[in-house]
C-alpha cells in the first residue's frame, strides 16, 4: 500500500468567520485546572478503585506463576504439601477475582459519574455565560455561531468527558501498574519491555500529528452529506419548481465523494498505526519470553517469574489499546473546549448601576455609528421622541432604519454623539435596566420549547396565572389559548402544539404587556406574516402600543400614516421629518410613495 495524501478539499474549513472569540490556550488550561479542582475527589476515587482492580487482576498470573514453579520443582515427594498450596492459591485466586469484578464495576461506574458530572458542569457553565452576553454582541454576532457551539461542540465534548477522560486515566494507571507489577515480579526483566518503546513513540507521533484534524474533516464531510440531503428535503417544493432534482443528486454525490476521500485518508492513517501497535505487543511479549527464557536458563530468575511476566505482558494489550483509542478524542475535545471557553472571554457588559433615567424623553444627539471602522451607517442623526408619541422611520432597505432603531433601544452605543433616555445615556445603563424601560420588538417572534406559561412568564418572573390570562386577553389571544387542551400548561414550541405565526406574534405581544416597558421600538414586527393575518394582529398590537412611546420601523405605509411623526431615512441621514399631512403637502419622496401606494 502506498501512502495516501490528505484530500485537497477540507469540509471542516470554516466558510464564515467565527463571530465569537475562541479561547486562547492559556484560558483553556486554566479552565481545565479549575475543572480538575472541582472534581478532585471523584478523580482520586476513580484512580483508587482502578488501582485495586488492576492489582487484583494481576493476582491470577502471579498465583499461576507460583503454581507452575511448584509443578516444575515438585515431583511426587511434596505431593501433599503441593495440594494444600494449590487449594490456598485457588482460594486466593477466587477472592482476587471477586475483588476484581466488584472494583471493575466501580471503575466503570465512577468513571461515568465523574464524566457526567464534568459534562453537566461544562454545559451548564456555557449556557450561563451565553445568556449573560451583552445584547449588542448578540445582535452583531447573531446566534448561529453560539448555536453551533452548544450543539456540535458540546456533543464532541460529551464523548471526551463521558469516555475519553475516565478511560484514559484508567488506561494510564492500568499500564503503569502492569509495568510496575512486571518490575516487581522479575526485576531483571523490566528493561526488556523498553525495547518496544521507540517503535511505539515513533508510530504514535506520526499518527497523532495527522489524526485529529483528519477526523475533524471526516466528521464534517459526513455531516455535509446529511446536510445536503436535509436541505433537499426542506426545499422540496423549490427543488421541484426549479427542476433542480438532478443537481441535488449530483451535489449529494459530490459530498459523498468528498466525505469518502477523507474516510480513505483516515483509513490509511490507521493502516499505519495498527501494525505498529501489533508490533509493539508482539515485541513486548517476545522480549519478555526470549530474554526471560535466557535468564531462566542462566538461573537468574525462575520459571514462575517468567510465566507471570509473560502473562502480564499479554495483559498490556488492553490498557495500551484504551489509551490509543481515546487519545485523539481528547485532542478533538481540546478544540471544542477552546470554542466553549472562548465565550467566557467576552466581557459581560456590566453597565453603570448609578445611571438612571429621569423621565421618558428619548433623544439622539448628533449620532454617528458604523459596524466597521471608517464606514458609518448613520451620520449626524439627531432626533427627539417625546413621551407617548409615535415616530415612524421609513426609507428604502439598507438606509439605516433598523440600525437607528437599535441605537434608540440601547443595543448599540453610538460611535460619537449620544442617545439618552430621560437624560441618561442608554449605552452606559445596565442591560436589565434598559429593558425595563425600552423593548425592541423584531420579526423574531420566537416561541420557546416549553409550556405556554413559561413562554409568558419570562417577561415577568413570578407572575400569577390571572396576570398571564389578562395579558393574553389584552392581545386577543385568550380565546385560542383557552381552547388549548392543557391551557397554560400546554407544551408549545418545536415538538409541542404548533402555533400559527400570528399566534406566535401574539405571544410576543403578550410578553410586552407583561414586561410593560414605556417605550417600544418595533422593527418590521408583523412583516413576515400573511398580510391578512397581519391585519388582525395590528389590532392586538395597537392595544399594546396604547399609552407608550413608539418608534416604528415602518414597512408598510399605513403604519407611517398612523404615526404622529414620520422620519424618512435615506443613506444614513434623516431626509424628511414631519407628520403625514406635512410630508404629503411638502411633496417630497414620501408624498410620491404615498400616492403610488394609495392609488
Amino acid at each position, binding site marked *: 500500500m502506498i501512502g495516501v495524501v490528505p484530500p485537497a478539499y477540507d469540509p471542516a474549513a470554516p466558510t464564515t468567520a467565527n463571530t465569537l472569540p475562541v479561547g486562547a490556550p492559556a484560558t483553556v488550561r486554566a479552565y481545565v485546572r479549575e475543572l480538575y479542582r472541582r472534581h478532585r475527589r471523584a478523580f482520586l476515587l476513580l484512580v483508587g478503585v482502578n488501582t485495586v482492580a488492576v492489582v487484583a487482576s494481576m493476582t*491470577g498470573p502471579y*498465583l499461576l506463576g507460583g503454581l507452575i514453579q511448584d*509443578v516444575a520443582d515438585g515431583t511426587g515427594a511434596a505431593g501433599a504439601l503441593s495440594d494444600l498450596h494449590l487449594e490456598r492459591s*485457588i482460594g486466593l485466586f477466587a477472592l482476587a477475582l471477586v475483588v*476484581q*469484578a466488584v472494583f*471493575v464495576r466501580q471503575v*466503570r461506574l465512577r468513571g461515568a459519574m465523574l464524566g*457526567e458530572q464534568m459534562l453537566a458542569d461544562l454545559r*451548564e457553565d456555557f*449556557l450561563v455565560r*451565553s445568556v449573560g*452576553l451583552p445584547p449588542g454582541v448578540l445582535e452583531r454576532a*447573531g446566534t448561529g455561531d453560539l448555536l453551533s457551539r*452548544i*450543539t456540535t461542540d*458540546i456533543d464532541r465534548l460529551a464523548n471526551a468527558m463521558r469516555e475519553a477522560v475516565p478511560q484514559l486515566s484508567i488506561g494510564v494507571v492500568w499500564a503503569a501498574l502492569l509495568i510496575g507489577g512486571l518490575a516487581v515480579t522479575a526485576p531483571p526483566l523490566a528493561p526488556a519491555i523498553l525495547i518496544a518503546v521507540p517503535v511505539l513513540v515513533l508510530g504514535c507521533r506520526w499518527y497523532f500529528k495527522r489524526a485529529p484534524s483528519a477526523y475533524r474533516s471526516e466528521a464534517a464531510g459526513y455531516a455535509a452529506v446529511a446536510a445536503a*440531503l436535509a436541505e433537499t428535503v*426542506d426545499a*422540496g*417544493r423549490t*427543488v421541484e*419548481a426549479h427542476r433542480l432534482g438532478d443537481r*441535488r443528486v449530483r451535489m*449529494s454525490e459530490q459530498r459523498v465523494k468528498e466525505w*469518502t476521500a477523507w474516510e480513505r485518508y483516515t*483509513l490509511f492513517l490507521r493502516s499505519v498505526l*495498527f501494525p505498529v501497535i*501489533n508490533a509493539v505487543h*508482539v515485541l513486548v511479549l517476545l522480549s519478555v*519470553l*526470549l530474554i526471560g527464557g535466557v535468564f531462566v536458563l542462566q538461573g537468574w530468575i525462575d520459571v514462575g517469574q*517468567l510465566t507471570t511476566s*509473560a502473562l502480564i505482558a*499479554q*495483559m498490556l494489550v488492553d490498557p495500551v489499546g484504551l489509551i490509543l483509542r481515546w487519545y485523539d478524542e481528547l485532542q478533538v475535545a481540546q478544540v471544542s473546549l477552546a470554542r466553549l471557553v472562548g465565550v467566557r472571554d467576552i466581557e459581560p457588559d456590566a453597565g453603570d448601576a448609578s445611571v438612571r433615567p429621569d423621565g421618558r424623553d428619548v433623544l439622539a444627539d448628533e449620532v454617528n455609528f458604523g459596524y466597521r471602522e471608517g464606514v458609518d451607517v448613520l451620520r449626524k442623526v439627531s432626533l427627539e421622541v417625546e413621551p407617548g408619541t409615535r415616530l415612524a422611520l421609513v*426609507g428604502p*432597505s*439598507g438606509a439605516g432604519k433598523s440600525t437607528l432603531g437599535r441605537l434608540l433601544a440601547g443595543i448599540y452605543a453610538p460611535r460619537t454623539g449620544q442617545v439618552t433616555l430621560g437624560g441618561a445615556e442608554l449605552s452606559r445603563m445596565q442591560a436589565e435596566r434598559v429593558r425595563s424601560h425600552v423593548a425592541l420588538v*423584531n420579526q*423574531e417572534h*420566537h416561541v420557546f420549547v*416549553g409550556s405556554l406559561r413559561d413562554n409568558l412568564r*419570562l*417577561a415577568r*418572573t413570578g407572575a400569577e396565572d390571572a396576570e398571564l390570562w389578562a395579558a393574553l386577553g389584552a392581545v386577543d389571544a385568550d*380565546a*385560542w389559548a383557552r381552547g388549548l387542551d392543557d391551557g397554560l400548561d400546554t407544551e408549545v414550541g*418545536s415538538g409541542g402544539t404548533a402555533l400559527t405565526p*400570528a399566534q406566535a406574534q401574539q405571544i410576543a405581544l403578550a*410578553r410586552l404587556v407583561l414586561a410593560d416597558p414605556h417605550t417600544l421600538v418595533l422593527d*418590521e414586527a408583523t412583516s*413576515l406574516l*400573511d*398580510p*391578512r393575518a397581519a391585519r388582525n394582529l395590528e*389590532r392586538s398590537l395597537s392595544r399594546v402600543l396604547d399609552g407608550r412611546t413608539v418608534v416604528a420601523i415602518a414597512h*408598510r405605509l399605513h403604519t407611517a400614516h*398612523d404615526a404622529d411623526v414620520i422620519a424618512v431615512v435615506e443613506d444614513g441621514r434623516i431626509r424628511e421629518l414631519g407628520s403625514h399631512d406635512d410630508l404629503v403637502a411638502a411633496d417630497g419622496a414620501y408624498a410620491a410613495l404615498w400616492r403610488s401606494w394609495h*392609488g
Partner: protein
Amino acid sequence: MQISDLPYPDPGVPDARSGPRFLLWLGRNQLGGQLKSLAWGLLHFSAVAGLPYGVGYAVQAVVDGSGSRLAAAGALIVLLGVAIACGDTMLHRTAVTNWITAAARVQQLLARRTAALGAALTRRVAAGEVVAVSTGDVEKIGWFVEALSRFAAAALTVVLVCVGLVIYQPALGVVVAIGMPVLALAVLPLLPRATRRADHQREKAGRATELASDTVAGLRVLRGIGGEELFLDRYRRASQEVRRAAVRSARMWSLISAIQVLLPGLLMIVVVWYGVRLAGEGRISVGELVTVYSAVMILNYPLRHFEEIAMAYSFSRPSAQRAARVLALERITEPAGGLRDAGVPTGDLFDPETGVLAPAGRLTAVVCGDPDLAGRLADRLGGHPASRDASEPADPAVAEPSVLLGGVPLDELPLDVARTAVLVQDKDPVLLSGTLTELLDVPSSGSVRPDEALAAAQCTDVLDALAQASLDDDPMNARITERGRSLSGGQRQRLALARSLVTDPEALVLDEPTSAVDSHTEARIAQGVRTLRRGRTTVVLTSSPLLLDRADGVVFVHDGRVAAVGEHRDLVRSEPRYRAVVTRETDEETAVAARTGPTGFTTGTGSGSRASTGTSTGIDTDIEIDIEETA
C-alpha cells in the same frame, strides 16, 4: 468496490419491502467485500488464538532447559505476530470499506428518492424520516454491515480453538469447550435492558440539547425582555436529568463489565485448579497448562464480538425498517389516462376551477381574500399540484380539472415539461446554500442574465451586504447560508425573486413575492419585474396596491370564483369587497364604507383610536374565524 471509486455511478434498485430484506439486499451487493473481510478476520483471530501456544511452547522449552526450542518458540511468535498485524489491519480495512460503501449507497439512494419525491415530501410526515435515516440510521446500518464479517470470523475462531484445545489437551479442552458458550451468551439477557437505558439517556440528552439550542436561538428575545433565570433553571434541571439517566445506564453497563470479568475468571480458576492437578500428576506438561490458561485469557477478545453483533442487529433493524419505508415512497404523477407526449405549450394560462385567466404575454395580478385559497391556487396553476397527494392516482370523477396552458392540460404533461412551462414561486421559497453564482445557476431559458434579474428584483443592498461577508469582495462568490438565514426576510424574498426571473419560464406565477419588502423597494420591484417580463406571461398573487397598480389587469377571486376583472384603480372604486382586501380598512370601516357607499371611503383612522373601540366582543369571534382559516 474500493472507497476511491465512490460514489456509485448507479446505487441500484433497493429491495425495500422490509427492513431485513433491505439489509439482505445491501449484503448481497457487497458479498465479495464480506468474504474478504471474513477471510482476513479468520487469519487475525486464529493468529491471536495461536499466540498462547507460542507462549506455552516457550515456557515448556525453558522448563526443559532447551535453548534451541526457546528460539523456535520465538520464531513462531514472530510469525504469529506478522499474521496478527496483517490480519488486524486488513480486517479493519475491509470491514470499514464495507460500512463506508454501504453508507454511501444508502445516502445516494436517499438523495435520488428525495429528488424524485420533490414537493410531495414536504406534504408528508416522511420529510422528518428521510432526515432521520440520513443522519442516524445510516450509521447503525453501517455498523451492522461492518460487524457482521468480524463476528463470523470471531465465531469460527472460537469454535476452531475449542476443537483445537480438545484435540491438543482433551481433559482441559473439554472444560473450556463447555465454558465458552456460557461465556458467549451470559450477558445477552442483560443487553436489552442496558440498551433501553442507553436509549433513555440519549432521549434525555436530545431533550437537553434541544432546550439549550432553543434557548440560544431565542436568546435575543430573552436578553431583550428578561427571563434568563427561568430558562437557566429549566436547562439545569434537564441537564441533571441527563446526568442521572447516564449514571443509571452506566450502572447496567458496569454490571455487564463485572460479569465479563467474573465469568472468564471462574473458567480460568477451574482450568488452573484442574490443570495444576493434572500437571502435578504428570498427565499434562507445564507448557500445556500455560497454553490453556492464556487461551482462555485471550479468547475473551473474539467473544466480545458476540455481544457486539447482538447489539448491532437490535439497533440496525428498526433503522433498516425506516430506511426501507422511506425508499419505498413514490410519487405518482401519471394521470389515469396516461401522459401526453407534447412539447412545452404556449398561450393563455387558465384555471377552470376558479375561472382565473392570465392572458399570454401580460402581467396579471390575482387578489384572493383568503390566503389559504391563494396558496392552493398558486400550487394548481403549475399543474401536478403537490397538495393533491399523488401517492394514489387521482380519481378522475372527483379530481379538480387541470389548469390549461394554451389549451393543454398541465396535469397530463410529464412533470418535468409542466415545470418547464410554468414556474410557481410559492410563498416560502427556499434559498439553497452555496454561493450567489450557484444560487442563480438554475435551469433557464438563458435569455435573462443574472445581473439583469438581480437589478429587477432590487438586490443592490443584498449584494453590498454579501460583498462584506465574501472572502474576496465579490458578492457573486459570497456564500448564502442554509435557507439564507444570514439575510433578512426581505433580502431573502428578493434573491428568490431574482432566481425565478433568471429561469425565465413561459409562465411565471409569483405568490406574495414582496410581502416582507418595504414600500419603497416594492414599488421599484413592481416596475423592474414588469419591464423584465415584458411579452411573457406573469401572474402575481398579491394584495399590495403597489404591485396591483402596475399590473396589466387584476383578477379578484372571492369565495373560490372570479368575482371581478379590471384595472386596480377602477376596481378600488367599483368593488367594495376588493377594496376591503387591498386597502387597510378594518372590518368596522368596511361596514361603514358599505353603508355610505363607494364615495364614503376613508383611509383609516389612527390605530390608537381603533384600539379604544376594539374591546367589543365581535373581535374575538373574528379572530377565531381567522385562525381556522390560516391553520
